[in-house]
């Protein structure tokens, strides 16, 4: 049987020009590539917007043919202890640059997950080995890094992908894989993935297992997100105080889709802001949503908590 790589790998860009969105970041990175030099970098931004992809492209382009030997990729949320910084990274930075690469690159992913002790150890190594090594630190929020590290790096912010960045990529993949994806399905993928290319690509591949024709229903079903229309309906019923119907709707959504409570409430949050709700009521609603998302994290019975939320919304009056 033909082997089927996950599409997130199969279609991962290998040229900066292929990276979707991120025009500002790409411009700077391109100049690094053309000059074969770079400073320490912080890639900050949400998941699935191209941070790892850009790091891999930089490594390949700047380090040249020997890039694999001179590139160390560590995932800080798996290896976050101070000893990793002290041993693995140190050993790597100390040893000679191999082949024709100008220096070595250490790529630390999800670096906002390492302890502040490790961050301090890291800070030392970043200055000690500048002759031989560059660091690329990727994180969701650069503010979670200690200031000394921030000051040693150029901070590049990656933004969530816009509709016009994401959809052409999906179309290209669909074409290459022989899929028939209609406009509504593309919209659904964009809605669910919220500009996260990894999620969008995974969704498309998962939908592929259903067949060649991809519909928006499939996307919602797979994503474990409810159809936004269903969520709005739930909110509307609750705001009208129609508890019985609202509970029925809630159960249909949660049981049929296997939705977790937190996913449901955060989606209610997203939809509430797009609906026409008078502002006092909206304020009360937001307070309730926040409170119940907290309770869902604290509690144990998702469906029960969500039903209580609906009962509370019904009595907002």
């Amino acid at each position: 049987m033909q082997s089927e790589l996950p599409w997130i790998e199969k279609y991962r860009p290998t040229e900066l020009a292929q990276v979707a969105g991120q025009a500002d970041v790409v411009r700077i990175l391109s100049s690094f590539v053309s000059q074969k030099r770079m400073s320490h970098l912080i890639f900050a931004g949400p998941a699935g917007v191209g941070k790892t992809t850009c790091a891999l492209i930089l490594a390949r382009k700047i380090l040249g043919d020997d890039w694999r030997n001179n590139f160390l990729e560590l995932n800080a949320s798996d290896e976050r202890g101070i000893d990793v910084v002290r041993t693995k990274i140190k050993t790597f930075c100390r040893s000679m640059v191999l082949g024709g690469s100008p220096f070595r690159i250490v790529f630390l992913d999800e670096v906002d997950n390492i302890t502040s002790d490790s961050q301090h150890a890291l800070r030392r190594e970043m200055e000690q080995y500048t002759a031989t090594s560059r660091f690329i630190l990727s994180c969701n929020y650069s503010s979670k890094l200690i200031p000394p590290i921030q000051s040693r790096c150029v901070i590049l912010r990656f933004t969530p992908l816009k509709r016009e960045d994401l959809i052409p990529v999906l179309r290209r993949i669909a074409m290459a894989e022989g899929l028939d994806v209609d406009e509504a399905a593309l919209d659904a993928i964009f809605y669910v993935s919220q500009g996260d290319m990894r999620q969008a690509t995974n969704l498309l591949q998962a939908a592929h297992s259903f067949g060649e024709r991809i519909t928006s229903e499939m996307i919602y079903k797979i994503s474990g997100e409810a159809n936004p229309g269903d969520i709005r309906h739930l909110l509307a019923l609750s705001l009208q105080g129609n508890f019985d119907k609202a509970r029925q709707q809630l159960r249909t959504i949660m049981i049929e889709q296997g939705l977790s409570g937190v996913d449901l409430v955060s989606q209610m949050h997203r939809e509430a802001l797009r609906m026409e709700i008078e502002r006092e009521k909206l304020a009360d609603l937001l307070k309730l949503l926040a409170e119940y998302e907290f309770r869902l994290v604290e509690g144990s019975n998702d469906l029960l908590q969500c039903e209580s939320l609906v009962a509370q919304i019904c009595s907002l009056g």
Partner: protein
Amino acid sequence: MWAEKHRPRLLSEVRGQDEAVAQMRKWAKEWSKGTPRQKAILLFGPAGTGKTTAALALGAEMNWDVLEINASDKRSQSSLEEVSRSCRTRYSFSGKPLKLYVIDEVDGMSGTEDKGGVRALCEMVRNTVNPIILICNDLYSPKLRHLRSMAKPIQFGKTRKDAIAAVLREISRKEGVEPDFLALNLMAERAEGDLRSAINDLEAVSIDGKVSRESVRVPQKRKGEGSIFRALDMIFDGYREAAEYARDLDLPPEQLLEWIAENIPVRYADDASRAYAYEMASLADIQLARVYRRMHWGFWGYATDIMTRGVGSIAEAGRGSLGPYRYVPPRAYVQHRARMSVLASLAQAKVTEGEASVMDALRTIGARCHMSTRTVLSDFMPYLKVIHDKRPEMAESMLRSLGMADAEIAMLTQRLRGE
């Protein structure tokens, strides 16, 4: 007696014992090829699960003569001797090829009345040229010490609740009783695997073509066990004793809470009371979660009090129950949990890190696709599961392309199936 009237005549009508029935058939088929090595089988299992019914039906299905000997017959050595003699020959008046000897309630043989009976049975099994089915409840009764090794044991498990409920529905239909699903399910539940007692209960509470739900609640199976319906009445009516009564129900607090939450709308219809009662249920749920999170059992007491007295505090003081109310069993919560469980169990692997093999597999995927194991779990596995559900070969091929060994793939796909 409905239990007798609706006793299945065909083996295929015996409910919820497919495995045992298949073994019996296999054994019976061997007889058509001559005398098999195992000349007797020993059916064992709790009362009311269909052992005797299956034995008699097997005889009919094979077109054998059947002789049934149960505890109502005297089974001493001397009285069994005659039977023992007859089973050594194949001569039959009816012209049927074989005669099946069904010996019921073997573990109930009396030590004094049926003196020497067990020894006679052993003799019988040793010498017979006809099939013998022995039936007992307790396989490990000392009386069966010798017989156990001479007959092939076949187990009849407790009949499952849904199988019992299905039979009850069928019988009520045949008897022209309006099937009240809630009541039938409750009866099936109470029967605790005993199908016959469930049918007896059904007959007892069917009055004028209707199952009276009130009377279903009446028979109490176990001592000290109250009724959840009574508890709900007390809780929603705001009785002081509600917490105490609920605690004695022998129902885990999580389940009690689900019964209560499910039925809040049944009792409190106005927005404010309903919201208040749910608020209490929500807080009780949080207390329950804290019990495990903080390993502090003290929270349990608060949880039960909040879900009973707290919920009931909205009840109008002094107003008694106007019931009966149509309380509903809390199925939705169970359904939701079942729907969620596979991904939750994958997530669990991360939390406990107990399962090294799962973690290794996640790490392999992560290394190849540039993700942390946490991201693999949250951003990759859910989609892989979708693909695996639809097209297992596609998921396997993906894992193979990531450099996974067959054993690893097998382990991971097993997890994806939720096994």
